[in-house]
């Protein structure tokens, strides 16, 4: 029966028993050290490590405006570009939103000339941005000389408003809200003009065959400020 029990063999070998005993004694001492560190020395920190921290994330914004004026012929579709260089907002945490206003009036000077029809759309191009954001306004038209306003949300989930978040740590949220790759590249705005002729258009000297368009690009850059709620 003793042949079947390995413990008898180990117990009868004094040399092995000595080595195994030393090993397990050291093991117990180290386990006591570990338990002391875990429960006493670092116990307070460990017990609260799972409690979720809350943070307030607020944003400071800076706006940069570029204006482009074009005269577009009747029936033409022109591409107007805005190029954002990699280092153009390096002092900020990110590129938040791009507002594009397309402004025009009836400039023919003819009597009773109605406003022309202008359509504009900004297409998802090579620029990395939150193109799928449901608040984006990527296309618009006007036949009444009203300003066409387009919006592209560039930085994902950015909406200018202060946020309350829970979990992780300050560095995590800082790294989440710092990314200079969004918004770098060239935005393409396509503008088409269709002239509405004045009632006097039949007179040979009276022609309305183009329109002046003013495009203002307002780039909103932001710096995030993250504070832990005590």
């Amino acid at each position, binding site marked *: 029966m003793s042949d079947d029990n390995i413990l008898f063999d180990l117990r009868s070998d004094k040399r092995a028993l000595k*080595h195994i005993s030393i090993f397990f004694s050291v093991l117990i001492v180290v386990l006591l050290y570990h338990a002391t560190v875990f429960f006493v020395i670092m116990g307070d920190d460990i017990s609260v490590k799972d409690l979720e921290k809350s943070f307030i994330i607020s944003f400071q914004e800076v706006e940069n405006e570029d204006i482009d004026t074009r005269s577009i012929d009747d029936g033409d579709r022109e591409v107007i570009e805005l190029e954002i260089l990699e280092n153009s907002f390096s002092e900020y945490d990110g590129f938040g939103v791009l507002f594009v206003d397309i402004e025009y009036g009836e400039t023919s000077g003819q009597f009773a000339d109605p406003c022309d029809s202008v359509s504009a759309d900004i297409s998802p191009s090579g620029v990395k941005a939150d193109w799928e954001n449901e608040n984006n306004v990527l296309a618009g038209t006007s036949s009444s000389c009203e300003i066409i306003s387009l919006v592209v949300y560039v930085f994902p989930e950015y909406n200018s408003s202060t946020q309350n978040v829970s979990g992780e740590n300050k560095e995590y949220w800082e790294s989440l809200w710092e990314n200079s790759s969004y918004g770098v590249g060239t935005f393409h705005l396509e503008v088409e003009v269709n002239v509405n002729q004045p009632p006097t258009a039949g007179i040979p000297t009276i022609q309305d065959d183009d329109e002046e368009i003013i495009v203002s690009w307002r780039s909103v850059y932001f710096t995030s400020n993250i504070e832990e709620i005590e």
Partner: protein
Amino acid sequence: MAGDSSNLLYIGAILSVALGAMSLRIIRKNKDLEWNEALAARIICWMFIGKGIQNAAVANMQDTSVDMWQFYAQLSSGLDNLFTGTIIALALIYPVPLLRSEKQVKIGFTMLFGFLVYVILLEVSGNPYTVFELPGIVYWMAMICWSTMYLKFRLIDPGNSNDSTDNIAIVSGLFLTLLMGHIWMWWPGMVLQSNYFYFFDLAGGPMTSMTWDYMWNASYTICIVTGFMLLGVEIFQYSKGNGSILLYLIIPYFILGAIGYIVYSAPETTVSHTRGTNDTLASIWNLLTSQLHFTVMRPLIAMFVLLKFGLFNINEETKPMAKIMTIILIVVATSAILELIQSIVPINQMISAALLGIIIALGIGWEERSFDSLASNKSNVRVGVGKRWFPNVSISQKTLERLDLVCFIYILVIFLISFIVWQTDMLVTVMLERYAEAGGVG
């Protein structure tokens, strides 16, 4: 880095499943093994088939943002339990059987299987990650069994020492390395009271209680003590001119641990083997150390044991498949390491392609020589060792085939359970409950 991490897990999945499935095919043809070796060989195969699927599940979980993560999380957990079961079973019978009679084997394996079923029941009843699962038991059992055998045979009376006694110790040490290697790289954290060791949280946040975290952390501590014991004994043996391959295998883990201390000690760095870290440098380090151990070193160590210690019967029929298996492992492992380096250090693609070609050619050349050397120069663990250490237990071929069937069905059942957990949102429910109890927001 999450992408690199999941890519490595996929590579690990291929390596592990290839090793497990091909080895199983070869081993099933080998009728000449002793009872414990036949059992051990099959257990190693299933261990790696399960680990391979688990690696793929973890990689998918990292790439999935929708609620299907629950399926992969449960699959990973269930297959990790299989790993626990196979490691404990292996430690009980190989290289020296601690279970010495048919009755002991039956009782031991029944208790083990019962434990696995018990853990599954805990998980499907909405109680995953509780102390009742005995977190860290795999490390305790492996440490007790293999450390005892290692010390007994590595420090045996010089008059009774021979190649077989050394080989028993080496096999025990290799399995301890396979299981604990990644933890040895954390030794400075344990000794120097670092946050990255004591704050380690396997499941993340309030999912596990402080007692659970302590039990898991304590099991890491015993692994580190075991590692130091191996290191000390191997250095001692080396100083007496009786060094072994084990010393060269263990030392890098401890050196990497010292370097890792600097990386992980950066402020606010939190670390998890499986979930990576929130810091770029620490993520890269984790990928090149812990993840590489899981995905590449483990299959390589297992392949070495299978080939070197005669668990394969290499003959004219099985030799081609065994060679294919080793080539797959070497080529995939080599290219994976190079790709990893390339993802971190920007090397021109043409240069890296050329380097890959050269390294693979060298690897295959090395494989030719090393395979022949391994296959023709097998090490024995029985010759010259008292017969009482290797009692005869009758295990029929039918029983061995039944073991294959049980493991196969277990994996299928885990898939089914994971599907149910996903469909019933069980893990999400448990998470919300535990986060609410902790007073936080999920």
